[in-house]
């Protein structure tokens, strides 16, 4: 079971208190109606699934209830950083070759 640091509570807690929220930094488009079917399908379904450092969303669901982001190495399962929603992704080198990151919006 992972140990995860909540950046809002500033405490380390077992994975049981958290819920995984998928890849981070995939912002919902401002005007979905203006997107083509391909663009919208891309937003809905396409994820980078990297081997190495992954930016992902977690929610401290049985704690403060806040969503936050984390950088986790998907090879070692180590958390490299946690940061609050809205903050930029910390610059941490990718340890293994990763697929191009699909980032839309902010």
């Amino acid at each position: 079971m992972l140990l995860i640091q909540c950046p809002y509570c500033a405490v380390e807690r077992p994975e049981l208190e958290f819920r995984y929220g998928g890849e981070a930094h995939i912002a919902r488009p401002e005007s979905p109606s203006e997107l083509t079917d391909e663009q919208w399908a891309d937003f809905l379904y396409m994820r980078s699934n990297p081997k190495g450092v992954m930016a992902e969303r977690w929610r401290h669901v049985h704690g403060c209830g806040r969503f936050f982001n984390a950088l986790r190495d998907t090879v070692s399962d180590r958390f490299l950083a946690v940061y609050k929603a809205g903050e930029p992704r910390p610059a941490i080198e990718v340890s293994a070759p990763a697929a191009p990151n699909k980032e839309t919006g902010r």
Partner: protein
Amino acid sequence: MTQIRRTRSGGRIDRSQPVRFTFDGRELTGFAGDTLASALLANDEHLVGRSFKYHRPRGILTAGSEEPNALVGVTRSPGSGTPNLRATQVELHEGLSARSQNRFPSLGFDIGAVNDLLSPLFVAGFYYKTFMWPKSFWNRVYEPFIRAAAGLGVAPTAPDRDRYANRYAHCDVLIAGAGPAGIAAALSAAEVGARVILADEQAEMGGALLHETGATVERQPADRWLEAALAELAANPRVTLLLRTTAFGYFNHNYIALGERVTDHLAVPDPDLPRERLWQVRARQVVIAAGSIERPLVFPENDRPGVMLAEAGRIYANRYGVLPGRSIAVATACDTAYRAALDIHAAGGSIAVIADLRERPDEALVAEARAAGIRVETSCVVTGVLGRKRVRSVLLGRLRSGSVTAAGTVNADCLLMSGGWTPNVSLHSQSRGKLVWDAERGAYLPGAAVQAERSAGSCAGVDGLAAVLADGAHAGAEAAREATGTAHAPRQIVAEGGEAGIGWVLGALPHDRDAARVRAFVDYQNDVTAKDVKLAVREGMHSIEHIKRYTTTGMATDQGRLSNMNALSIASTALNRPVPEVGLTTFRQPYTPVSFGTLATTSRGDLFDPVRKTPIHGWAAGQGAAFEDVSLWKRAWYFPRGGEDMHRAVERECRTVRESVGLFDASTLGKIEVVGPDAAEFLNRIYTNPWLKLGPGRLRYGLMLNEAGFIMDDGVVGRLAEDRFHVTTTTGGAPRVLAHMEDYLQTEWPDLKVWLTSTTEQWAVIAVQGPKAREAIAPLVDDIDLATEALPHMSMREGHVMGGIPCRLFRMSFTGEAGYELNVPPSRAREVWEAVWANVEKLGGCAYGTETMHVLRAEKGYIIVGQETDGTVTPDDVGMSWAIGKKKRDFVGMRSLARPDLVAEGRKQLVGLLTRDGTALLEEGAQITREAVPALKTPALGHVTSSYVSPAAGRPIALAMIADGRARMGETLHVPMPEGAITVEVVPPVFVDPEGARLNV
């Protein structure tokens, strides 16, 4: 025959305390401090089990948890007990009742042993070959046969009456294994003030110190020093010592599972104690001090009872005061076996020969053995043993430049063997640490750590007592420094004796026997021979992972701790590739078998899941309601009267609601209070419906989609004020909906000023439905005008009932009848319910349950999310395009509704179905086809989602999702069933009051 192999003195057993036990019903005696294995050996019992595949007679091979052969069932009471326990770990207690396994009718005469004669049929991968033909035999003949023959022990038949406990713990340093390295590590770590947990799977701590009778530590005999060291640790409040506790799983982020066996060793356990306890430990640092395991030699008939590992023989002699045989031969490639022979000799045993594979073993050891009168043969290999249920004699061969010539027979009833030592890297491997091949030692050693762990002592390849103690002390100090930040020099411990084990051999030994007829076992428990491994390679299995699965070597409960290195070496020879290039399979959790009770701990029966009950539950139970589980809730299902069955009760309840009035407990509905200046805008984005213009005091049915455009929940939403909404969700969907809302609010629209609060348990909901609903509640309402003009359908008021009880009164319906829902505080709910009930009873009404609620809503064609929908259904699919705000710019899921596959022809649509004969009740989930007897592989048009007998329609009705359903009104279709197809007609999905006139009475 009583304990004829017991030495006259010595050992850690208590000779003043005889203990009676039974093995296969025979009464035997041992001493307190014995294991079942040592007590059986004391009685000269070597034959203790039958092997898995060939049913070969098997004896006790080891003295530890890696034992592959001596697996027994221990019975506690009729129907309960534990199968497959290792006799080497079962502690003797008065009245212990153990049975051998995998034999019929008896251990001595076993019919299954015919498999041994048929062994050519059961070679590696036999189940892929033997049972291939004819195909029809698989289900009827082969599988039942294999199932009956497979497995060793017999599962208990009675429910487990024991209790299992669970405990969480944190520590600075967890030490797995309390041998010399583990104890030295604990002493050093404790000195810094670290919180230490020291766990050992045995009944006593000390590991090798318990049988290193010749060694001294700090100038004291090893056991004396051990006693003092353990006393020092026990006196330290920051140290937890766990006996009979196996670190069986090393998981992510230094999370380690320990299994503590609390009472199995006691004749009369304290009823307040659990049988086993699961420790879930989060350790800052881990020291693995798991020791090393002696390796068997692979020679023909190496599985006969009487063949044992050399160090095991030494342990039985020194620790348990038991000689493993009358006349003992020793075969070795390693120095440590000399110490075993000398110790057994000193204890009064007779050593027939030491056959050393090596040409020039350590001269001093050979001289010491010969001085004791022991015959030592060098360049000498064991080529087999005679005797079936017990070794009678040992065949020796002379090794000369790789070839073997017969060198005579030695009479012996026990053969001790040593192929050298395998460092126990299981936990390191579980922690995802890599292993590195050490060609010098012929062993895999722990490589770089991935987690905060280090291996110490012989599991790290350190040899000899003094070096092991020093390495342990260093590891303990190091771990404590990293965990606490406090540095301290490791404890200096002087030791003499307990020499290093020099020398090893891997793989199958050469012999002069007929290779076609003899078998040398690599994996005892799974009956895998050296030939099987070679055969697997010949048949194209070149990866060790494939060889493992094809032969099942290393897949037994010891996970290959005894067999892996030999199998690897044989595969490496057959593949003509060096060992490290063949690779190594991964060690997995659990280290040794763990009972289901330990894993389940307290999560059984009533404690498996929490139960949620509404404030009305007690009343419903008092009325004799039947309940059903809806998520964690207990909901009243129906209220039978005077011996009614469910069908009759539901029919009466349905009629009563439509004719007069019914009372329904809707408290389980999820409720969320949405508050803030942007609350309406937020709901506008979350739901398909428009909310901005909904006036305070009005209700609206809300439909919620996920971003992919599929229905995820629905419920009625009331606007209490400009900035305050009372949202309801489905019973099971409440947490999911709140999480969905929080997700969008926090991460997509953090600019919106909205607060979300779960109020599910703040409001009990009393639904009153039916033409007399108003009459039933009117006398109780304090300050709300119930006239239709003042409170029309789909509106709400906040007020009071029964002289001041706060109430959010909704006028709404899920039945098609006029109705109200009274939201009241749970603490007053029972009171209000009973008052309403009194009126309902006077009016000839009834209470109704969820089944009637389902029938009434189906009669009206109202969907239930999760019943009509399955996560692939859009609003249009269920005819609810009306719920979509046409002028909205955006809402969650809106863009997806325009995706090509969501607007394509042929999507399944909600329709009603009536059976042609008017009596058949369709089965929910049944498929619907065009033809009564469709050709094979014809895709179904759709499926039945809801089906009930409708009292209002006077016949069974059904809802269904059918491709292009709305264009099929009036069509005749079929529902194929095992008894024959049922003919149905497609109709609109509303069976009662399609205009909705009854809502407005």
